[in-house]
């Protein structure tokens, strides 16, 4: 299967299809791990999760246990959470503040900067034993973009800013909602497994074509609460205008006029009358700081951003940062957080979190139905021999603008996926 292309892209015939074996074949996953997850920049976490020297969080990225932390100089570092002696995990806590990391198995210890600083019975090793070579291993590249920390296991990775390409503008739009110019991850992690191929969640995260059918109960709920949901224009699916855009390097976005309210900063009845002055004040601050046009861009559009391959930043009912890693062709582990402006008022924070839960997450009114949809798709993938191809041609015949319910942004992901899978 390795040299088989799973993406058929024929612009002349206006044909674009994805082969369903890409969602079930273990050989495809193995190749993805080596050619995508080991090559691209991968989201590791947010600087705000580890604010002070010695702070750490542990997680599994690209199949490897890692520690995201601040070293003794409060510099952001990523270490492989693996002892150099026998390979045990050296830190088994989710988060905390550490003087260093000690493997409990034979007692090797490492300082905050990853240096091996303790080896019980070290004199039994021959003279060739060199502590300096046995510090905690690090990915070849770790870099941040405005608080978002990425790593790459690829020694030849291009600079992060170049990799992010047009996605930077969309991260900037998210971050611009913060009066302090900084965003932070809010305490509380939603971690869950979906029994589906990870690429189905990429598609789902910025596929507005499914919104009206999959999420009708959520729409009914917000309508009942008093939100004016316009009727879609003739020939359209969505209540408001929105476009799909490619951002380079496989990143893409849907960029929508907001109709559903935003903590920053468009009040809807769901937030309650008491929240109105707060939302208006946030809006006024935005206009003051950014000017009317930029404030409108920040506050009146919802944007679902996919940073290739597996980072989603959705700025809608609230801001969610979501990343996911495959553990099998039909299984992924999802981690999702709420992101909010650093130093936002307690009241605005409460509105943001409340708004988050209406739509997002394993107990929200929408995400569980997405999960059900993806698991349902995965079940159907088992018939890939009989039904090998999924069509992905929506909007392909259009000149110019592509809608959020078209599939340009999905095609963009798949074109780059195919490019990585077959790079020389």
């Amino acid at each position, binding site marked *: 299967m390795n040299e088989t292309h799973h993406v058929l892209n024929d612009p002349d015939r206006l044909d674009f299809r994805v082969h369903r074996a890409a969602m079930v074949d273990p050989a495809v996953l193995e190749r993805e791990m080596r050619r995508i997850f080991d090559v691209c920049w991968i989201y590791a976490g947010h600087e705000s999760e580890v604010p002070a020297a010695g702070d750490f969080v542990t997680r599994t990225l690209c199949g490897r246990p890692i520690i995201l932390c601040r070293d003794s100089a409060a510099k952001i570092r990523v270490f492989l959470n693996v002892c150099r002696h026998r390979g045990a995990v050296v830190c088994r806590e*989710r*988060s905390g503040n550490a003087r260093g990391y000690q493997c409990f198995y034979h007692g090797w210890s490492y300082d905050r900067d990853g240096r091996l600083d303790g080896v019980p019975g070290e004199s039994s090793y021959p003279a060739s034993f060199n502590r300096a070579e046995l510090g905690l291993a690090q990915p070849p590249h770790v870099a941040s973009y405005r608080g978002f920390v990425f790593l790459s296991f690829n020694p030849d990775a291009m600079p992060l800013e170049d990799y992010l390409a047009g996605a930077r503008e969309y991260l900037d739009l998210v971050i611009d909602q913060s009066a302090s110019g900084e965003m932070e991850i*809010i*305490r*509380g*992690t*939603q*971690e*869950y*497994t*979906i*029994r589906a191929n990870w690429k189905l969640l990429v598609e789902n995260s910025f596929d507005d074509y499914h919104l009206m059918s*999959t999420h*009708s*109960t*959520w729409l*009914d*709920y917000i309508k*009942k*609460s008093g939100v004016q949901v316009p009727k879609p224009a003739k020939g359209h699916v969505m209540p408001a205008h929105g476009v799909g855009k490619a951002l380079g390097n496989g990143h893409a976005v849907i960029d929508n006029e907001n109709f559903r309210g935003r903590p920053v900063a468009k009040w809807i009845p769901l937030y309650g009358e008491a929240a109105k002055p707060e939302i208006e004040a946030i809006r006024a601050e935005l206009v003051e700081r950014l000017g009317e046009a930029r404030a409108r861009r920040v506050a009146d559009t919802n944007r679902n951003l996919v940073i290739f391959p597996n980072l989603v930043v959705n700025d809608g009912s609230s801001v969610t940062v979501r990343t996911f890693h495959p553990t099998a062709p039909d299984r992924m*582990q999802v981690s999702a*957080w*709420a992101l909010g402006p650093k130093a936002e008022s*307690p009241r605005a*924070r*409460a509105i943001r*979190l*409340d708004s*988050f*839960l*209406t739509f997002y*997450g*394993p*107990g929200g*009114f929408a*995400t*569980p*139905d997405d*999960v*059900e*949809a993806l*698991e349902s798709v995965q*079940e159907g993938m088992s018939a890939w021999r009989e039904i090998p191809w999924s069509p992905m041609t929506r909007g392909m015949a259009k000149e110019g603008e592509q809608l959020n319910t078209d599939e340009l942004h999905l095609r963009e992901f798949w074109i780059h996926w195919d490019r990585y899978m077959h790079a020389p």
Partner: protein
Amino acid sequence: MITRAEVEDFLFQEAALLDAWKLDEWLALLTEDARYRVPSNDSPEGDPASTLFLIADDIDRIRGRVARLKDPHAHAEFPHSRTRRMISNVRIVERSSPSPLGEGRGEGSGRGEGDVIVEANFTVHRFRRDERIGQYVGRYRYRLRVTDGGLRIALREAILDSLELGSLGAVSFIL
């Protein structure tokens, strides 16, 4: 004074309604200011105003949740999951005196006993097609109000023990 046995009868009755998907009857057990919460697994002690939960509903969103769950378009729960709840280790951990002003009281405290804080352990088995089986294990924390009509739920918090939601996937039913 309300007894543990009365509380147990109430919780068992509530569990039976939820397992039978009699959600309107379940709603009738709640006070007008009721809240229902499931904290994120890594922050079981958080406050929903400053911590991301999985569920943090006020009474309006609880009613919205029930309306959604009764709609066949709530795909995650259609067909409905089968659930079976085991509730044990029921304890009254605190009794509060009734507020003299009746502040925040949706209904009168007929027996004049105020609220009781109750903790209980739960295992909720959930079954969906294709052998999707989940066991939600944790503890409940209730604030129950003693009213003329019997006990009513003012706060219902389901705190999961698993370190992540993981393969449980979703909390799309009433946990």
